[in-house]
């Protein structure tokens, strides 16, 4: 089963490698991983898409939590969430095809962000289904290159993933 997991981590060097190493060392699967700073510059947020049965997912969540630099782990399966991914696609856009590509971009509310005599570079954002549909339609036209960010996700409604500051979150030792 596919899970989207949010991981809040200390914004320090080496943390990404700890998380990635955990997945490779224990044979867990990473479909995509997206990481950037949050509102609080000391914290980064990772969105990881992974898959596995319940036992494996339970281990993934526990093992992530065990890493010292990991502040909070959230499995979006346990809540309503929205997720979006961004894709850049370079497609064939020779004379006959230019119109068709334009129409498609319009229908999917994408953008053309770069143009050359023979190609268009398109930008599209959306959830998994929309992106899949868009790419299927582009295939016959000729995709020359494709890069995707992997999804990022956030809880629906007023719910916010935050860490409990002030309250003695860390262990103490005197």
């Amino acid at each position, binding site marked *: 089963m596919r899970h989207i997991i949010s991981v809040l*981590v*200390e914004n320090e060097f*080496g943390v990404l*490698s*700890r998380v990635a*190493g*955990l997945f490779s*060392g224990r044979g867990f699967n990473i479909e995509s991983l997206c990481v950037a700073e949050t509102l609080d510059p000391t914290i980064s947020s990772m969105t990881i898409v992974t898959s596995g049965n319940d*036992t494996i997912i*339970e*281990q993934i969540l*526990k*093992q992530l*939590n*065990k890493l*010292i*630099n*990991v*502040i*909070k782990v959230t499995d979006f399966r346990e809540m309503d969430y929205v997720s979006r991914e961004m894709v850049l696609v370079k497609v064939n856009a020779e004379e006959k095809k230019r119109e068709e590509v334009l129409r498609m971009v319009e229908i999917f509310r994408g953008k053309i962000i770069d143009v050359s005599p023979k190609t268009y570079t398109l930008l599209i954002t959306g959830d998994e289904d929309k992106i899949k549909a868009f790419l299927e339609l582009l295939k016959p036209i000729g995709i020359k290159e494709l890069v995707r960010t992997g999804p990022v996700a956030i809880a629906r409604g007023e719910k916010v993933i935050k*860490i409990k*500051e002030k309250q*003695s*979150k*860390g*262990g*103490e*030792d*005197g």
Partner: protein
Amino acid sequence: MKKTGSQIFVECLKMEGVDTIFCYPGGATLNITDVLSQSPEIKQIVVRHEQGAVHASDGYARATGKVGVCLVTSGPGATNTVTGIATAYMDSIPIVVFTCQVTTMLIGNDAFQEADIVGITRPCTKHNYLVKDVKDLARIIKEAFYLARSGRPGPILVDIPKDVSAQVCDFKYPEKVFIRSYQPTYVGHAGQIKRAVKLILSSKRPILYTGGGIISSGASQELIKLAEKLSLPVTNTLMGLGGFPGNHKQFLGMLGMHGTYAANMAITNSDAIIAIGARFDDRATGNTDAFAPHAQIIHVDIDPTSISKSIKVHIPIVGDSKNVIKKMLEFIDDEKDSIKDYKEGIKDWLEQIEKWKKQYPLTYSKGDRLKPQYVIERIYALTKGDAIISTEVGQNQMWTAQFYKFLKPRTILTSGGLGTMGYGFPAAIGAQVAFPDRLVIDIAGDGSIQMNIQELATAVQFNLPVKVVILNNGFLGMVRQWQELFYGKRYTWTHMNFAPDFVKLAQAYNAVGYRIEKEEEVDKILKEAFANKRPTFIDVPVDPEEGVYPMVPAGAALRDMLLV
């Protein structure tokens, strides 16, 4: 007050109460080494190989319960620590390994004696640090010691570049640690503990299965109380030995691949397993599908990742073993009414266990050649269980676990999880440094001892009277045993066609060497060896093809033991 990185380092060690470090110098350690030369209150044991330094600090930690410390140089010095770190990681042993690093300007430059040791040890440390700024040094050392000993203990590595150890800054040792992302759970969930107690009291065939968590949380006395109060039979993992007295009438011995018949049968037929501080390792469970098919399982562990990892459990309790057992005892006192029925209900079970114990006790047959099991029995008898015993890995380790009765916690030092040959001798050295007046014995094989035999020089130099009993069968015995059973007796690579004369070798190092040839000499020579105050090798040629039994073949169910 302004201090250099090296002075800060030494001050921090003192603030942490470190009395001993195991070390090996190199170019990158020089700043620190020089300051340490002015600090005689910290005992500095210089080893002969960095792996020995880590195992020695690990042995020190296991024997004392304190954090073990070692310090080595960059590059090869650092990479030589990896096996020792992985050993401590698998067995949850609190050590802090300080590696020195090339100067920060040169990091990443493929400099002389540079290795990315933080990258290399990421998967085998609980956590590790590269100190990039001397201002962070004191905080990082404080965190390192705290992380090593708190929660599920483990090794922490701190990499200190040479320029950082020379830089100057204001020094103030932080009074408190605050790590917002680290919060071990010590107190178990009261509702879960209550459920666990109810489950035990309604069971008919309960058993306690305990591991190294009992030792690291210091829960031995509480465990004995719990077992005695509810007449529970107890089995230990290898790491748990000593947590419950080996001569107690409720003790069934170790379980698992080389566990006793009674322990494995009891686990298999149990209807309630109380697992405390054990992690259902494959050597303990055998085939997990056939593991305790009728049992409801209670699992107490401080590390949530250990729970339901290989065996699905019914009542998980995250917490410190000692705390949780104490709470269990309180709840049991509230249940006085049901205890009578419970004890009535488990009578048949306890009788059945006694039958199993009598049916197939641990045994071996005597022959023309001296038997290793006999030697271990005699070591136990002569020391009355009051020695610190380390082992190497393989047959010597399993025979020790079977035939030496460990009476108290922290009396066995053995590489359980990683199974590191060459562990026992340096670990014994570490324990001997901590307890100069106690008898410390490494029960070794002729294969394993040669993996860190260079540490004999350390033992001699620092007057550490460690005794090494070499059960010499001329084979890498455990692997040979597998070849005997599963590979048509083709003893490929396992026959040691050449071995040194261990007696002469000991003498060459200015240590004492003995050889025991006959059964009649065993007591006499062991007594003499144990009485002398010098490092001693005792070479004991034993039956070359003796095996360790019972044995559950890899992947088989616990009930399917080879009993020969």
